[in-house]
């Protein structure tokens, strides 16, 4: 029986080549998209799932309130002593470890012999780290690799970069950064073969190695210094909620005095480590995470595309039912029970789906590098089909085959043999089936139009983010990082020599450049106020050329001068932004000269306002603008230099700049980037989304059009006689094309009416995530509608014209 089904299914497919090709093409494309998205989602969901006992592994995160009525900040971090103290105080906590990197630097300098380069993602970690997190060690002893001071564990990639083929264990490397270079002994090398981690680390060094590590170890700050990533593993069976509930009391026991003194409210939470990578929205997270909402949107799109391909199959199958009806009649007449026919038709759809998946797998594999590139993924996805992957592909076949095949199967097998064999039209699909088919086409187009509108709005929002006036000029600016303390000492010399190059208009040194995350902030209150009314203001140190180089307008007061450089960190001279004044309750005119205060761990800090600048967007537009100020910093603390350049020939200019660097800092590598590119990088997620939605929108439209094309072929075929008669009666070509296209246009218009509010609803929700967003404009809907109409007309008119040009005598004779 099964053999018979398969045989007939194969022959059916072979005989109706255009039908099979349309379906196979659509299903293959759909499945390839689906598989790609599943791979992408699976990749992001696999982060940190491989650590033994990960179900009991938590990161300690903090909700901070710096003033009574201020906004709560959700930090991925906590204060230094918390994690080890939890291990002491809570019997449920089995083990704890801290992870930190120097807050002031983005990169670390690595030196070994002649090789000198910068490396990101280096962490100071407690020696317990590798007992909490599983890494596959290529060399070295994981649990004790970091027991000794000044030991370092490297990723295999970094080890190869430094040592080539040489063994890394036992070698010495120098690691520098904010402080002087220190020698570290390599005690381990790991790779990522067990799985990815949210830390995405390139190297680890032991916490008890002085520097920032020493600072962390000796720190007793329970309220401030929230720059540590703390992790705990609970004992199996321990309830994280019970532990969390006792955390306020735990904080009070240790730090009540400190909290009272600086008026910080802090609530600690335990975040499951396995969920870190798919959770966005925490400040100061280690890596760029991928939100689970984003992944869910992708899954939805994957489902949509596969559904569109399934609808093609349903539509074409039922449209062809007139042809299949006879076979159904015959089979029933020779004794086929309905179940057998359902089995047969389902078999056909399964076979087709199986073929589609069979084609999609190698197709996706071939296209993977291309698609990765197109999507602008920071790291390439790889496809390793394990049993799980194959099982999943099989599941996809079953689901797709069932969805695509069930309606045609039940519909076709329901034909009454007496009717279809006598050629009754009624038996081959009454108005109910016709309506259903139209409904399917409408839903296909609704999905496509929603995707078109979505793609347009995402694109608009991205452009808005990139084009919005940030309050400073980001064009034609180069950013040169000074990652190392030694380099910073030469920054001022470098800057003044740089200005001798004629293409350089202005140059400024600063701690943090626009787009880099600001880590310093001070709660400040007005004269006569107290910490409870303080406004938390983010800050960074800059030099006196800051405003001129970035073309930031001052609204009142004066710019900073070299003489303003703080003699002590406790008496600052600052230029604040409007937002800060708004929250403090000053007008720009009255602000200059006002003194702000802060009390912090027995220290009293004053900040005197010398000027007011407009609201510059120093950070991503994804978040609301915050109070911000710049202070005259010490060049030794500066980590960046921004120069305004006027040139058409960057290679020549940059070689001059590099020559200057080589002269002043011969043993440090030279790097630079463009400010506008750095800022554009903040919107990588939006860019990826825009590309993915754009690509998949095209796919959905293509697949829908294929189906529509197939339908129009059958419709024209069915109406051959009608068209012949009309032509004999004198209908024009235009008239016939109109007649045949009108029905489809109605469907597209209906789809447009359905999709517009749906798309509006979805996209409004999406835009709500942004603090700064573009409006949804009416023309987007019009454009999407027009696009759908034009594509439909082009698809359908081919068949309509063919029908209209056909010889009526020919078509009438066949009756």
């Amino acid at each position, binding site marked *: 029986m099964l053999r*018979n089904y398969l045989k007939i299914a194969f022959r059916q497919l072979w005989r109706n080549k255009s039908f099979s090709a349309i379906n196979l093409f659509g299903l293959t494309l759909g499945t390839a998209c689906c598989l790609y998205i599943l791979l992408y989602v699976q990749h992001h969901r696999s982060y940190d799932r491989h650590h033994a006992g990960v179900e009991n592994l938590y990161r300690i995160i903090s909700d901070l309130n710096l003033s009574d009525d201020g906004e709560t900040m959700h930090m991925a971090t906590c204060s230094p002593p918390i994690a080890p103290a939890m291990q002491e105080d809570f019997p449920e906590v089995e083990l704890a470890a801290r992870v930190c990197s120097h807050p002031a630097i983005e990169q670390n300098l690595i030196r070994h012999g002649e090789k000198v380069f910068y490396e990101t993602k280096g962490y100071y970690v407690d020696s317990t780290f590798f007992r909490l997190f599983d890494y596959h060690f290529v060399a070295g002893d994981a649990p004790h690799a970091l027991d000794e001071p000044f030991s370092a564990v490297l990723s295999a990639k970094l080890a190869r970069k430094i040592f080539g083929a040489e063994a890394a264990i036992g070698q010495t490397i120098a690691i520098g950064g904010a402080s002087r270079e220190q020698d570290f002994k390599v005690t381990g090398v790991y790779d990522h073969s067990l799985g990815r981690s949210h830390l995405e680390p390139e190297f680890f060094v032991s916490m008890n190695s002085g520097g920032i590590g020493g600072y962390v170890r000796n720190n007793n700050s329970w309220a401030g210094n929230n720059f540590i990533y703390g992790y705990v593993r609970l004992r199996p069976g321990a309830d994280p909620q019970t532990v969390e509930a006792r955390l306020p009391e735990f904080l009070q026991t240790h730090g009540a005095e400190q909290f009272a003194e600086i008026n910080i409210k802090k609530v600690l939470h335990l975040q499951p480590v396995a969920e870190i990578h798919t959770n966005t929205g925490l400040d100061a997270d280690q890596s760029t995470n991928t939100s689970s909402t984003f992944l869910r949107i992708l899954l939805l799109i994957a489902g949509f595309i596969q559904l569109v391909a399934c609808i093609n199959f349903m539509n074409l199958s039922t449209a062809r039912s007139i042809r299949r009806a006879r076979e159904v009649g015959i089979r029933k007449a*020779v004794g086929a029970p309905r179940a057998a026919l359902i089995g047969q038709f389902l078999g056909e759809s399964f076979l087709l789906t199986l073929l589609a998946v069979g084609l999609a797998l190698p197709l996706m594999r071939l296209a993977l590098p291309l698609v990765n590139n197109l999507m602008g993924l920071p790291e390439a996805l790889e496809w390793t089909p394990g049993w799980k992957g194959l099982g999943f592909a099989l599941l996809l076949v079953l689901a797709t085959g069932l969805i695509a095949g069930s309606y045609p199967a039940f519909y076709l097998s329901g034909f009454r043999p007496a009717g279809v064999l006598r050629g009754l039209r009624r038996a081959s699909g009454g108005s109910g089936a016709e309506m259903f088919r139209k409904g399917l086409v409408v839903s296909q187009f609704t999905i496509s139009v929603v995707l078109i509108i979505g793609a347009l709005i995402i694109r608009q929002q991205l452009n808005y983010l990139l084009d919005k006036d940030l309050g400073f000029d980001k064009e034609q600016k180069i950013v040169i990082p000074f990652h190392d303390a030694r380099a910073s000492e030469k920054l001022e010399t470098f800057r003044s020599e740089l200005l001798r190059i004629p293409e350089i208009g202005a140059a400024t040194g600063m701690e943090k450049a626009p787009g880099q995350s600001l880590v310093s902030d001070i709660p400040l209150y007005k004269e006569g106020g107290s910490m409870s009314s303080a406004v938390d203001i983010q800050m960074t140190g800059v030099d006196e050329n800051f405003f001129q180089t970035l073309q930031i307008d001052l609204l009142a007061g004066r710019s900073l001068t070299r003489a303003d450089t703080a003699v002590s960190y406790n008496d600052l001279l600052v230029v604040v932004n409007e937002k800060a004044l708004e929250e403090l309750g000053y007008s720009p005119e009255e602000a200059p000269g006002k003194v702000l205060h802060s009390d912090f761990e027995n220290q009293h800090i004053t900040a005197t306002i010398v000027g007011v600048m407009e609201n510059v967007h120093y950070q991503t537009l994804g978040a609301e603008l915050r109070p911000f100020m710049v202070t005259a910093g010490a060049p030794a603390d500066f980590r960046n230099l921004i120069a305004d350049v006027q040139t058409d020939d960057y290679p020549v200019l940059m070689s001059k700049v590099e020559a200057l660097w080589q002269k002043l800092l011969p043993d440090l590598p030279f790097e630079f980037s463009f400010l506008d590119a750095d800022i554009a990088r903040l919107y990588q997620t939006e860019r990826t989304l825009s590309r993915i939605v754009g690509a998949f929108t095209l796919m959905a439209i293509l697949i829908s059009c294929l189906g529509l094309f197939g339908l129009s072929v059958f419709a024209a075929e069915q109406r051959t006689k009608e068209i012949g008669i009309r032509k004999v009666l004198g209908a024009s070509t235009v008239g016939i094309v109109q007649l045949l296209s009108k029905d489809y246009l109605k469907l597209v218009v209906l789809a447009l009416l359905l999709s517009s509010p749906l798309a509006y609803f979805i996209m409004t929700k999406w835009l709500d995530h942004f603090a700064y967003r573009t409006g949804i404009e009416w023309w987007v809907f019009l454009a999407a509608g027009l696009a759908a109409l034009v594509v439909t007309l082009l698809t359908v008119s081919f068949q309509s014209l063919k029908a209209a040009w056909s010889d009526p005598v020919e078509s009438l004779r066949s009756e």
Partner: protein
Amino acid sequence: MITLSNLERFYTNASQKTYVLRDLSLKIEEGEFVTIMGPSGAGKSTLLNIIGMLDQPDRGEYHFFDEPVHKLKEKKRQELHKYYMGFVFQAYYLIDELTVYENIETPLLYRKVKRSERQSRIADILDRFQIVAKKDLFPHQLSGGQQQLVGVARAIVGNPKLLLADEPTGNLHSSQGEVIMDLFRQLHRDGMTIVQVTHNEKYAQYGTRVVELEDGFVRQDVAL
């Protein structure tokens, strides 16, 4: 074997009833070869379909042996149809995608006949109809007469008690038609009950009885 009493079959079209069969009663015994004749629209095919259980009457009773067909569930009717009936159609109605062999095999598959048994039965019938050489051809590669031979072979391969033929010679020219009718006569002599619909007076003579329909009534019922 077949007892039809007071059958009615009608279509409702725009609140108007169009009768195809009215108050029709008929008895057919095992071993008969009945020819149903009559003008177009007299209800011949409908009657045949009702006897073959492909269609149901709107009123009246149908007993097949002792089974009250009009009271049976769809499933049970299908069973009866499957095991007792063989159908031959005017337009042959072979499945285009299947070879001669596979077309003949189809009813056996639905009867869940074992593979070896299927092979021997089909071999027998191919041999008997002298179409062994054609077994791997597809329907469109055969002449009309050959296709109808396959149609008859398919109808009787499952050893039905009753062979129903709806104008089996309607699409054939006379020499081909006679081949089919000779075959029917042979089947009848071997004990098969046959009910055929035809317009052809000459082919009616092959049977044992002629039932003439007009406007859904039995106008004449003559034993030959």
